[in-house]
């Protein structure tokens, strides 16, 4: 069993992505294979240089950088969505793989889940 956890909402504006991240970290904590996929406005999770002190939130960039340490197997991002949001390779945090999202990708996982 391997799980793809999908984040398709932008960071800070709502909590869905944070709760998706918690799901991924929980799977990893129980030694279950898990990969994160960022889609649509969700690709904005991956932008370098986030500084959310002014809105009194914790940096999701920092949360995400812990993903490999916790055992999350991969950080995937839809390539076209990265482009749409002006995210070139140099703007992305380390360890992100850009992919084409379609049935070929989803069929590689036994579960695909959204947090909300």
């Amino acid at each position, binding site marked *: *069993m391997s*799980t793809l956890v999908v984040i398709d909402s932008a960071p800070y504006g709502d*909590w*869905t992505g944070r*709760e998706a991240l*918690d*799901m991924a970290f*929980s*799977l990893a904590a*129980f030694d*279950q294979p898990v990969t994160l996929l960022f889609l649509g406005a969700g690709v904005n999770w991956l932008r370098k240089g986030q500084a959310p002190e002014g809105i009194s939130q914790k940096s999701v960039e920092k949360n995400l950088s812990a993903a490999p340490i916790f055992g999350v197997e991969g950080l995937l991002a839809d390539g076209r969505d990265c482009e749409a949001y002006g995210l070139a390779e140099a703007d992305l945090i380390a360890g992100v793989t850009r992919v084409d999202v379609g049935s070929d990708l989803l069929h590689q996982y036994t*579960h695909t*889940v*959204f*947090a*909300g």
Partner: protein
Amino acid sequence: MTMQHSEPFSFTIVITGAPYSSQAPQTAIGFARAALASGHRIDRIFLYGDGVHLASALSSPPSDEPHWPREWSQLLEAHDIPGIACIASALRRGLVDEAEKKRYELSAHNVRAPFVIAGLGEWVEAGLRSSRVIYFHGGSGA
């Protein structure tokens, strides 16, 4: 494969949309009743994100509207199905049981029986044990 020959399945139902904000708890109960009527088992209900509000003991809709928290509680009790609200989602959103009330020195507790509060480990286990985990999300407004 047809229903007549298939084995009963075991389901976990995950609800992430709140009652009176989304349709998720309603659709999920329709699905749950149909699964039971079809001879399948429901292993557990897991409430996540805004879905934890379904476990509210204080929800008081107008008397001519369905009382989704009560309907869900009755279904769980009638079929002895565990109902779990994710602790991290619940605490942030003001859903607490007696233990959390004491721990955080709060003025009240408001989780409706038989719902209990527990961690995401319950959800991980669901993915391993149940034949299907079916998610009912909010409509996200659009």
